[in-house]
């Protein structure tokens, strides 16, 4: 590795790397968010209690659960690089659907993440104490109210580390989207290296950029986790001592 080349590449192709990193971050962020929403919805639907009695509602729920399971199994069981080819080139060839590349990229990452997140959310819901469901039921909440007000806020906190993990995986795995020519970091790096034939330096820079992105994301998520946990102490409402604080006294005297 020569420093000259490194500096040359950064000065000449710096923007290409930055744009690539931007697209990578953009696709993985949007993909993770949409995927998480898909996961939450599926998790809620899959945990609707199925009635014991045979009837239309039971059949319908079983059917929906079947479809959702098929979706999860299929997208977890096939590589994203193959899904990208099928969805982007395959749909274009078979049905003449011409998708915007970035849209296709987000779509692929979203449904892929959705499949993983659905299982993570389901696990998160199952890990919540049965008493929380019973208490919610006892105040008269139905499944959706129980989920949105009581269960999901707790689930989201519990699955945040796993979600962060998905985000980090997505930042790295968007590199496979170069097969459909999305101009993300790997794709741009490949173009740069293809021009100057300095693979070591070019991909070295890409490496550093990937790491900076994943590491920053991990730290930010850790910070959010701490924020969500809230302070360990609580403030007693009302002034227990019934003694005025000096600053309050000052304020009151000014007002008066």
């Amino acid at each position, binding site marked *: 590795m020569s420093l000259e080349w490194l500096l040359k590449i950064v000065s000449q192709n710096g923007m290409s790397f930055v744009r690539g990193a931007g697209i990578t971050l953009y696709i993985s962020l949007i993909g993770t968010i949409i995927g998480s929403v898909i996961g939450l919805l599926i998790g809620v639907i899959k945990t609707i209690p199925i009635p014991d009695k045979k009837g239309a509602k039971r059949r319908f729920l079983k059917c929906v659960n079947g479809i959702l399971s098929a979706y999860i199994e299929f997208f977890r069981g096939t590589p994203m690089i193959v899904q990208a080819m099928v969805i982007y080139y395959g749909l274009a060839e078979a049905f003449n659907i011409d998708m915007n590349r970035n849209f296709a990229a987000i779509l692929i990452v979203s449904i892929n993440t959705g499949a993983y997140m659905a299982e993570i959310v389901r696990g998160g819901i199952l890990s919540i104490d049965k008493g929380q469901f019973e208490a919610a039921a006892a*105040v*008269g909440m139905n499944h959706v109210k129980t989920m949105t007000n009581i269960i999901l806020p707790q689930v989201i906190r519990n699955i945040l580390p796993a979600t962060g993990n998905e985000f980090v995986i997505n930042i790295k795995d968007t590199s496979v989207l170069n097969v459909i020519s999305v101009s993300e970091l790997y794709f741009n790096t490949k173009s740069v290296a293809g021009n100057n034939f300095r693979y070591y330096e070019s991909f070295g820079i890409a490496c550093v950029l990937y790491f900076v992105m994943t590491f920053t994301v991990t730290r930010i998520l850790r910070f959010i986790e701490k924020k969500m946990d809230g302070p360990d102490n*609580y403030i*007693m*409402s009302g002034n227990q001592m019934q003694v005025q604080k000096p600053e309050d006294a000052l304020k009151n005297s000014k007002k008066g």
Partner: protein
Amino acid sequence: MENIIEIKHLSKSFGSHEVLKDIDFSVQKGEVVCIIGSSGSGKSTLLRCVNLLEKPDGGEIIYQGENILDDKHDVYTYRTHLGMVFQQFNLFNNLDVLSNCMVGQQKVLHRSEKEASETAIKYLKTVGMEDYIHAKPKQLSGGQKQRVAIARALSMEPDVMLFDEPTSALDPEMVGDVLKIMKELAESGLTMLVVTHEMSFAKEVSDRVVFMDQGVIAEEGHPDQIFNTPTQERTREFLSRVLTKN
């Protein structure tokens, strides 16, 4: 006196084990009924059947003249008329004390935020927890949690309060606080159905004691009669066992 809840021929099985066998039972308005009996006698299951946390296999539960086990009956609305206090407190872990008492009022009864918080604070005062409105459940002791749980149930202003062994998970020193609040509630005329192992509470506070054994109501009557002159052999046996233990 009018019956608030009337249970007819209620049965419930878990697998092949029959937990409740043909239970007939009713609660009158303003009455405090204690259900006693050894573990596994079906008393908790009976209470949980009353608000349908367990779905009964057969029988009827009549509330305001309607059988709520009918398919067309709305379970969720029915449950708002019953307050439930659990052995394990089951406070909503994601909400602070005040929100615990407000969420049901706002989301289920559709009360305004102002009304809900006023009602919540009123009942938090009743249980002596009004200073802790911003505390999260994990920051409270068992006794404090149970007092908040009682306030949460009261905030829905139910017709009947159900208590499922409310003091069984508490440290002995906390038990007194919770029982004192329950006693005050009983004296205020609230209709209460209490599953308990606290014999002294059952003896002092209740209007009627129901003794359950092996899925049936073995004996019921005024606490003086049950505790002093039980007619059934198994009631005598049970009472001698628990009363000597204390």
